[in-house]
């Protein structure tokens, strides 16, 4: 299944605006993060487990246990600082 990944703020600067991926097996958001980390740099550093990151699934804040569905839009970004 295809999913769309987006990055924002410091992650966008390191990794670009995003990409479309074809997954062989269903994944959770956290498993996708691990798969991206496994690519090595720059993903390994930008998405590293020690870093405080947030994720959204289909434009709603989500937990890493959230399951990706076909066509899903998943976003990774730093803690938010608006207002």
């Amino acid at each position: 299944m295809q999913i769309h990944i987006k990055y924002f703020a410091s992650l966008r600067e390191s990794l670009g605006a995003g990409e479309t991926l074809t997954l062989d097996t269903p994944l959770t958001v956290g498993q996708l993060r691990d798969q991206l980390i496994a690519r090595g740099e720059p993903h390994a550093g930008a998405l590293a487990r020690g870093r405080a990151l947030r994720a959204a699934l289909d434009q709603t804040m989500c937990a890493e246990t959230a399951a990706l569905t076909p066509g899903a839009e998943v976003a990774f970004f730093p803690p938010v600082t608006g207002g």
Partner: protein
Amino acid sequence: MSSSSLPLPRLSSVSIQTGDFDLSAEVAALRRGDAGVGAVAAFVGTVRDRHAGQPDAGSISALELEHYPGMTERSIEAMIDDAFRRFDIRGVRVIHRVGPLQIADQIVLVAVTSMHRGESFQACEFLMDYLKSEAPFWKKETTADGAGWVDARVSDETALQRWGIVSGNATGACA
């Protein structure tokens, strides 16, 4: 909570924009046509020239705001829905600017109308606390040392906890 069986007017709108806004015009538009309004609370956030805890004036020279188009509007609309459930309010207007901003520029407006002042004061603060910790905006500031992304503040997460909401900023993605 309303004891009336008639639905209250429920006026709300959210704008994400690069341009400035006029507080008086926005408040006038929010009140227009609703004679039940007895109170307006409006908060305007502006661009500071210094960091929190660092009194040096002029340490920040410019600010840039990035957001997540689509999610930003949806998340703020969900916060407004929550505010209408929690408080007896009649109208909400939220404007948040994005893109490059200068010192002293207006960044954000949250305006709330209600019959009595207590509800609009509370709802305005609730919405700002919520927006600070849960709406997908990111600030990048320019100082003498160059440009850098602003870190989230623990005090903003604490502010949201007052309303019984745990900020995802504090817990990371595993909210």
